[in-house]
Structure formats: structure tokens, C-alpha cells
């Protein structure tokens, strides 16, 4: 049986009149890297804040490591590390002093783990720099080092690659993958950069206006984000009729721009242009594409699957 680290059932949260979460169900299994995807105001940060105990839910149930009573949840949070919105640290203390502060606070014996955390995030050389003097990316790393100090079983990261330079993004991605692979740490992260999430997460949760549109694993997503052929023709209606009759293709969609999108094509690409030529239909464009996470997300939103 799958062990869940996070289980949210019908979770609701409002800020005054604004409904941030309108009853979402999210489950995160042990060892998973869960990517939360959504526009600004979709409810990603609110969900992460509920996990970290910064805000309280208005309804529904939240379980972490099986615990759901507020006191028990508080206790279970000792098993987590988190960066929500921006990394929290004291800017006038050095990197090393910040970690020492949290080491004492969390009752971690010895300084070995501090060194290990600094090494893991690549801040060992900056350990004597003041937190406030670090670059944006370095600050994120310091936040991550603080989060990793307690050897968390669950990492909660809100936009962890914000402000990172390209090499920093790659390093962060590799680091998260390594933590998941080697230490079996469960990670839940949100990001606007979908292409980045696609390379990191193995489960995705699509949020929009406080609703969870869909929760899907990377393998399921890969199946759904299948290859398709897009063909722009002079008479889309006529073309689709022949498509069904002669090539027995039913999985197609006529896009707003008039192009015909053939999902999961069964024939070679040339067959589709030949079909048009045979019936005197002009072909303006023909290409084979792989639907990316971004397309999937946009389609999901546009399909109006949500009730909001």
C-alpha cells in the first residue's frame, strides 16, 4: 500500500472574501517530487503555507505523516524543511552563524550536519559571508541549507528557482533529484517555470483559482502529452471528413486557427498531406509536435474542466 506523506481532503482556505483554496484533494506519496503548477493566485503558496502551519485551513482535512490534529501536525513539522515565498534568515549573521543558530534551536548535536548542509547546497566557500550580502541565488541556497539542516523527510519549496541564474537552476534541479534519489526525501515544490518542473517532478498537481484541476503522475502525463500532427489546410471540414473515411482517424481536433490537430497519429506524416492532395485541398503547413507540459496545462485550463 502506498504511504502518503501529505493527504489533503476537501481543503479550503479563504482570506476575507477571497477564496484561495476551494476544497482541494492532494496526495503526496513518500519519495515523490510533487510539482504544483498554477498561475498567480491559483492557491499554490496558500497550500504550502497550510502545510507549514503559517495559516489555518477553514475546512477539510490535512494530514502529514498520518497526523491531522493541530498539535500532532505541529510535532510532525519537525520532520520537514521549508522555504515559502523567500528564504528566512538573519541578514546580519554570516552563513555559518545562521546555520549555527538553527542547529542550536533544533537541538542538532555536533557541527557535522552544518558542514554537510553547506556542502550540499554549495555554500561552503561563502560560510563567512553575511546573509544580507549574498546574491539572490545564494540566499535561496542558504534557505535550502537551513531547511536541510534537520535532515527533513519532507521538503516544502515555494518557487525554489526564483532568482537563480541558469547554472544555479541546473544545480538546484540536480540537487533536488539527488536528495530524492539518495535520501528518499519527499519534495513538494511550486514553480511558474513549467519546463523546469517537467524535468524535476514525478507527480504534478494543476491548480487554478483555488481548484485542483488534475493530479497526474509523470508517466501518465507522458502518455497524455503524446505526439500529434498539426496540419493547416484550406478546407478543414472537408479534410476531416476524408480523415475519418479514408484514414480512419477519429482522434482529431480543429483548432481555432483552422489547423487540424491529429492526436496519436497512426500513419506516417506524408500520408496526411497526401490525403489532402488527393482531394484537391491545399496544405499550408504540416508538422509533427510533442505536447509539452505547458501545452497540457493550457489545454487543461481551456477545456473548462474546472467548475470555477
Amino acid at each position, binding site marked *: 500500500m502506498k504511504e502518503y506523506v501529505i493527504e489533503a481532503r476537501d481543503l479550503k482556505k479563504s482570506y476575507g472574501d477571497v477564496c484561495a483554496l476551494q476544497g482541494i484533494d492532494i496526495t503526496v506519496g513518500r519519495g515523490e517530487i510533487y510539482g504544483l503548477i498554477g498561475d498567480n493566485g491559483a492557491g499554490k503558496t496558500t497550500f504550502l503555507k497550510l502545510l507549514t*502551519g503559517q*495559516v489555518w485551513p477553514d475546512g477539510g482535512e490535512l494530514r502529514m505523516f498520518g497526523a491531522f490534529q493541530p498539535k500532532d501536525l505541529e510535532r*510532525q*513539522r519537525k520532520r520537514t524543511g*521549508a522555504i515559502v*515565498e*523567500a*528564504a528566512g534568515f538573519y541578514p*546580519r549573521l554570516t552563513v555559518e552563524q545562521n546555520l549555527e543558530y538553527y542547529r542550536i534551536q533544533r537541538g542538532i548535536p555536533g557541527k557535522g550536519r552544518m558542514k554537510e548542509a553547506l556542502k550540499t547546497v554549495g555554500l561552503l566557500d561563502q560560510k563567512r559571508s553575511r546573509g544580507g550580502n549574498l546574491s539572490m541565488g545564494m540566499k535561496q541556497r542558504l534557505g535550502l541549507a537551513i531547511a536541510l539542516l534537520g535532515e527533513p523527510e519532507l521538503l516544502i519549496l515555494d518557487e525554489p528557482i526564483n532568482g537563480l541564474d541558469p547554472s544555479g537552476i541546473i544545480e538546484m534541479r540536480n540537487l533536488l533529484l539527488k536528495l530524492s534519489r539518495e535520501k528518499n526525501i519527499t519534495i513538494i515544490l511550486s514553480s511558474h517555470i513549467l519546463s523546469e518542473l517537467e524535468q524535476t517532478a514525478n507527480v504534478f498537481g494543476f491548480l487554478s483559482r483555488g481548484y485542483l484541476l488534475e493530479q497526474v503522475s509523470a508517466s501518465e502525463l507522458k502518455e497524455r502529452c503524446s505526439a500529434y500532427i498539426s496540419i493547416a489546410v484550406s478546407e478543414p471540414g472537408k479534410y476531416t471528413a476524408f480523415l475519418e473515411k479514408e484514414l480512419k482517424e477519429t482522434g482529431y481536433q480543429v483548432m481555432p486557427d483552422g489547423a487540424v490537430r491529429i492526436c496519436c497519429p497512426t500513419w506516417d506524416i506524408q500520408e496526411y498531406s497526401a490525403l489532402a492532395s488527393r482531394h484537391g485541398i491545399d496544405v499550408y503547413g504540416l508538422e509533427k509536435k510533442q505536447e509539452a507540459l505547458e501545452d497540457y496545462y493550457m489545454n487543461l485550463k481551456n477545456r473548462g474542466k474546472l467548475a470555477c
Partner: protein
Amino acid sequence: MLNYIKSELYRIAHGREIYLVTAALAGLTLLMNLVLFIFDRATPDFPYATVQFSMNTLISSLPAMFLVSLVMVNFLFGEEYRNGTLKNLVSFGIPRIVFFVGKCTVCLICLAACLAVVLPVYIGSAYLLLHEPGFLSVSVMLRGVAANIPASAASAVLAVTLLCLLKKEINVVIWWMAIMWGIPTASFFIGLKVDIVEKISEWMPWNYLQYEVAANMSGVYKCLWETPSGLAKCIIAGLAGIIIFTAAGIAGFRKKEIQ
């Protein structure tokens, strides 16, 4: 709780805030005595360059101790929301009551440390720079400071409470002034008409330190802490303040959402 207190003491020892506040306060007392000393040198028969006058200044303005608490709390914990360190505490599973009480405790330790430096500088510089030993005034001042430690602690707890509940430091100062000074002052004036309010207002530290303390150059002191009942009043009022503000802080902060 102990771990939290230890970590805060580590942070404060490695920061500069406590040193700045202590140096500023010690410098201020030194400056006051230095000004008296300079005037003494420059003005013939200057009557105020005495230890007694210097001590009387503090005796008659003991509410300054409350302001010191506010300044200290603001310096030590004023940037918790801005730095995002408060949300770290919550997300790492440290119970809110632990770090609220921890913060209050740390603040009191820091205030005691600050006092341990400022008072010797104050008395020492007075003895070095000014005339007359003024033993009586020093002992009255020291007893006054000791008697008002509970009220100063209550003031610090109030400041911690407000800092945990309010995001902006300016709001903390406004609310602190309203509670520590505004309410007692208003109660005093309402008390002139309404007896019950008068009785209550007499127990407010700001009021009794304003109206029940008299120190003059003739060496006659009428300070409430010099009588057993007055001393008891100072201690009871201070302890009541600590209990009320701690309870308010715990109740309020338990429900507070940290954005």
C-alpha cells in the same frame, strides 16, 4: 524552550543590536553627567553638579525604563517578519507558545545584562565627575529601579506581544504607547470625575511613577517604593502586567496567521 532560548542568545551575542542599545544608554547617562561636569567648570556656583541631582533625574523619570524595554525588544526582534524568520520557527514545528515565552525570557535576560552595564556607568561616572557622595540618592534610585523591574518586564512582554501580532514596527510603537501611556493618562483624567477609575488608574505604573514619586535637592524623598505598601504596589502591578500581557500574547499569537 531551552534550545530556543540558547539559539536566540547565540544570535544576539553575535549580532550588534544589544551592544548598540547598551552603548547608547550608557553613553547617554555618561553624557548627562559630563554636561553637568562641564557646566560646573564653566559656571561659578553651579548647584546641579552633584551626584544627588544626577540620581534624582532618573528617580523622577523611571518610566524611561519602560521605554528602554520597548527599544530593546524592537532592536532584538523587530525584523522577524521582514527577515522571514518567524515563519521558519512555525514551519520547523516549534510551538508558538515556546517561542513566545522564549522571546520574553531572552528579552528579560538582555535587559538585565544591559542594566548591569548601564547602572555602573551611570553611578560610576556620577561619582567620578560630580560633587558630594549622595549615598541616599543612589540607594533610593537603586531601590526604585529594583522595585520597577516587574513593571519593566511587563512592558517588555507587551512589546513582544505586539511584535508577534503586528507586522510593522511603527504600529508596535503606537499600540505600546497607547497601552502604556495613553490608557493610564486617560484613566487619570477620567478618574478625577469617576472614583472607580481613579482607583484603577492609581495601579497603573505610568501614573504611580508620575504622581507618587517626589525627589528634590533638599534630600527629601517621597517615593512609593520606600514604603512597604508602595513597594508591594510596584511589584503587584508589575506582576499583574506580566500575567495579563503574557496571556494576551499567547492567546493572540496562537491564532495569528503568519503571512
